[in-house]
């Protein structure tokens, strides 16, 4: 067996190209005769849009054309589509206003495109954009999540009274009654009002796109920063551009991080495709960072009231959640899914709470559209749950560890049906927590706290026990819940005649290491050396089909599709081997790259079988086609459920309010692990993302919808000196829902870190009378909390 199979921390195949400047990102694609697009954007949060006079800009040097909303209409462009429908509690479908690619009649958020200038150089396009005369009449705005649906708020879309997109109850009336009963009978209750603030994705590579239309072939090619090339093709082609799927190629080359923000089809991509088709020249667009700040789909933005009922022993008996979720000005592709089925279905967490109900009001506001961002709904769910549990621990006087242990779903209770629709696959929650407590030296905390106190500092420790539903699929369930797409994954495994293997996968690698991990699957199962395997992703003309990478689905769904395709390769290989070895196919065994006639020493390697398949001189041509190239789709029967236990320890300076994360221990269980090095890297990144949300990140808009955090000057990202090193460990509880036993790992850190950090901060401040503090927990907010606690 060659080295580098499942379980090996092999170094990444893709690293050489990235480390030597050979990565090929979208903006590195250069086309002969290319034009440059510049987007002129609304400076207003809400304004009536009068005339857009482009005459001066059109006459400027180098300008080829200026496109406006009416031009898009005249050319029959559709609006940007939404991929998920939600039904309100009164049975009506969600309000889904048209999202034009270029504004018409009104602008509804700062950054909305009002015109596009296409010129010979990027500088000429930008210069000419300043000559476009736009007639705006500013309107009152509704930019605040909490109040946007109240009477008197400015109305953003004609079809959405009170700016309500949907008003959703889950799981339903019966559950709400059960929760009411639990609260009536409760021995204790805990209640929190909390904000899960809006954050900006900020992948380090700005969004970018290059479109090229070949009139001779009537074929459109779009290179863009996408996580899901096939979905991008479908959504843009069918809904916006009316470009037939077979005449539309989308390529997502190397992509510099996504975190969910590169899934949705964006207006800029549609516009440059349209322009390229119109002008028959390649057209490119590169997002400036300040543009990305307001136009990359944002994440989170919930205002929530959560209540937990407990019996006298501290067992959770009921959970009630009321949330207002901000959708932004328009519905981005998966926006409605996030505060609903990716959110409320996770309210059981790792616990046995029998009765759960919630109401979610989704509102439109004059702010940037919101969509999936690392965790998408699950961080919001985990945050409220793990925070209210700590509040319950305080109210009941039960230790935060003990109260969690009393309520954990037991390791022998799986599969476990929660009251919020999901059937958990496998788990061993107490074990993970015990390891985290041990590794974090939980018992030694009191001494460390004393040491901090002697130094004039406050010290706190906090736990979070996140769970996640990953592996977005299964299609049938997703369809019932409102998905407008399938959620399988596909793969093709092709032996080349000389014995090397090419894997074509429908997922996309934008940092996750698929080129290595997927190759390891092939090495492990087919015995082909790692260096002889190539993984191709992100090109609709090469990979057969795919749903892309998001929701931590690539290995468990996409990897499983590869595994299935390899099963087919082995099946066919056995038939070929039986011919070559002159034995019955039932007697052929396959292991580590070698076919053997069972009970004999007659063998043939898979490389020789592949050669015979492509040079079929001695081959059963009457019964079998030549070639060794198989394709599979995998659509799992359920999500999978990774889980973790995190312990965070912080030190707070009461004089300045500054918080530093002193220790962070993470014990994750993501099922079977293919490459431990890559898995740890995913956890590190997620934790830093979550610590960023907990302590520093936050998108702020004023009441007119003006972004106040529109650049890196005002929006704080985690830096090397604001996050700690992490202490990691893991347990392995295989997933029974896919052949690899794998669960997702890309998001769990970002899901679990925020409550762990905030629980630690509140623990530090508790002695000063502070029982809750909203994110981001900045030195200012801590200082304020301490002052107001002192005053009361």
């Amino acid at each position: 067996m060659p080295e580098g199979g499942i379980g090996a921390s092999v170094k990444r195949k893709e690293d050489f190209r990235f480390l030597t400047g050979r990565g090929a990102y979208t903006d590195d694609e250069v086309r002969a005769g290319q034009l440059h697009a510049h987007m002129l954007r609304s400076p207003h949060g809400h304004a009536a849009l009068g005339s857009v006079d482009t005459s001066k800009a059109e006459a400027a040097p180098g300008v080829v054309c200026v496109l406006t909303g009416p031009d898009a209409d005249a050319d029959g462009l559709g609006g940007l589509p939404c991929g998920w429908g939600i039904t309100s509690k009164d049975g009506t479908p969600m309000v889904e206003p048209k999202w034009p690619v270029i504004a018409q009649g009104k602008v509804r958020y700062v950054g909305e495109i009002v015109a596009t200038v296409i010129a010979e150089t990027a500088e000429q396009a930008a210069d000419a954009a300043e000559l476009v005369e736009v007639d705006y009449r500013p309107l009152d705005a509704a930019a605040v999540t909490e109040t946007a649906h109240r009477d008197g708020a400015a109305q953003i879309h004609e079809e959405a009274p009170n700016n309500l997109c949907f008003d959703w109850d889950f799981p339903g009336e019966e559950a709400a009654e059960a929760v009411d009963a639990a609260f009536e009978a409760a021995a204790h209750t805990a209640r929190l009002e909390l904000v899960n603030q809006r954050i900006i994705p900020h992948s380090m590579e700005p969004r970018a796109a290059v479109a090229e239309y070949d009139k001779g072939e009537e074929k459109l090619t779009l290179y863009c920063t996408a996580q899901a090339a096939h979905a991008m093709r479908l959504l843009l082609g069918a809904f916006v551009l009316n470009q037939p799927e077979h005449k539309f190629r989308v390529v997502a080359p190397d992509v510099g991080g996504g975190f969910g923000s590169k899934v949705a089809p964006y207006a800029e991509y549609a516009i440059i495709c349209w322009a390229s088709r119109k002008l028959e020249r390649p057209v490119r667009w590169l997002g400036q960072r300040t543009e990305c700040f307001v136009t990359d789909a944002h994440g989170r933005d919930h205002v929530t009231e959560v209540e937990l009922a407990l019996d006298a022993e501290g067992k959770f008996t009921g959970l009630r959640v009321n949330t207002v979720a901000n959708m932004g000005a328009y519905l981005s592709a998966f926006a409605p899914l996030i505060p609903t089925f990716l959110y409320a279905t996770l309210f059981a967490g790792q616990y046995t709470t029998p009765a759960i109900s919630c109401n979610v009001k989704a509102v439109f506001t004059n702010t940037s559209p919101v969509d999936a961002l690392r965790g998408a709904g699950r961080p919001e769910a985990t945050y409220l749950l793990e925070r209210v549990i700590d509040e319950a621990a305080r109210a009941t006087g039960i230790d935060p560890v003990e109260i969690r242990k009393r309520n954990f779903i037991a390791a022998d209770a799986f599969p476990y049906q929660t009251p919020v629709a999901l059937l958990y696959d496998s788990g061993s929650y107490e074990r993970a927590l015990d390891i985290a407590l041990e590794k974090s030296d939980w018992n030694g905390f009191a001494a460390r706290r004393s040491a901090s106190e002697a130094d004039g500092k406050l010290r706190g420790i906090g736990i979070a026990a996140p769970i996640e539903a990953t592996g977005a699929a299964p299609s049938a369930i997703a369809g019932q819940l409102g998905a407008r797409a399938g959620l399988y994954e596909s793969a093709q495994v092709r032996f080349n005649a000389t014995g090397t293997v090419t894997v074509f996968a429908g997922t996309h690698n934008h940092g996750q290491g698929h080129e290595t991990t997927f190759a390891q699957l092939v090495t492990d199962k087919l015995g082909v050396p790692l260096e002889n395997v190539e993984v191709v992703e992100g090109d609709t003309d090469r990979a057969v089909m795919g749903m892309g990478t998001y929701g931590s689905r690539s290995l468990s769904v996409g990897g499983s599709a590869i595994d299935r395709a390899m099963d087919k390769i082995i099946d066919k290989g056995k038939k070929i081997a039986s011919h070559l070895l002159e034995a019955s196919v039932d007697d052929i065994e396959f292991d580590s790259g070698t076919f053997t006639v069972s009970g004999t020493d007659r063998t043939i390697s898979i490389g020789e079988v592949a050669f015979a398949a492509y040079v079929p001189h001695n081959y059963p041509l009457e019964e079998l086609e030549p070639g060794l190239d198989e394709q599979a789709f995998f659509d799992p029967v359920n999500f999978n459920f990774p889980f973790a236990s995190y312990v965070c320890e912080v030190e707070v300076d009461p004089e300045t309010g500054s918080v530093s994360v002193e220790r962070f221990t993470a014990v994750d269980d993501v099922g079977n692990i293919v490459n431990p090095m890559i898995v740890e890297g995913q956890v590190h990144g997620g934790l830093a993302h979550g610590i960023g949300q907990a302590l520093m990140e936050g998108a702020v808009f004023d009441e007119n919808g003006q972004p106040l955090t529109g650049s890196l000057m005002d929006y704080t990202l985690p830096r090397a000196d604001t996050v700690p090193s992490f202490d990691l460990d893991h347990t392995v509880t295989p997933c029974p829902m896919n052949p690899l036993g794998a669960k997702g790992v890309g998001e769990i850190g970002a899901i679990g870190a925020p409550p762990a950090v905030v629980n630690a901060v509140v623990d530090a401040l508790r002695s000063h009378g502070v029982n809750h503090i909203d994110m981001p927990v900045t030195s200012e907010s801590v200082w304020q909390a301490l002052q107001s606690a002192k005053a009361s």
Partner: protein
Amino acid sequence: MTSTVSMTVNGKQVSAECEGRTLLVQYLREKLALTGTHVGCDTSQCGACVVHVDGISVKSCTMLAHQAEGCDVVTIEGLADGDTLHPMQEAFRENHALQCGFCTPGMVMSAIDMVNRHDTLDEKTVRHQLEGNLCRCTGYHNIVKAILAAHPVMKGTA
């Protein structure tokens, strides 16, 4: 208005016509097709564009191409010797200090300069020195590890 700007890049004499407002990073990417140097922001804060100018790390988005006239510039493309990686590149690979690779060129260039400037390095110094380089993928953990691992190799004390 364009004029010719000449400099040495990765050991080669180069010249190209460019506007007065052309940034060094644009010169490298657009005129020389050295696309390894990245642009991650427009406020000089991300560090994706770091190159060495006369041996010192510089954010190439904060410098006009004209200002580099006659200078000796090294980019990420100029570090490896054929298939042999520079010790810092090797340490990044060994320690999984990159994921999407977008911040990586700037990180590596900054890290080399950091090692050049420090006889000794500890975690705290590395983290502090990396303040000008953003990474959204790795959580910095493995980048810090990689730099600490490369230091003795580069100093010949390994």
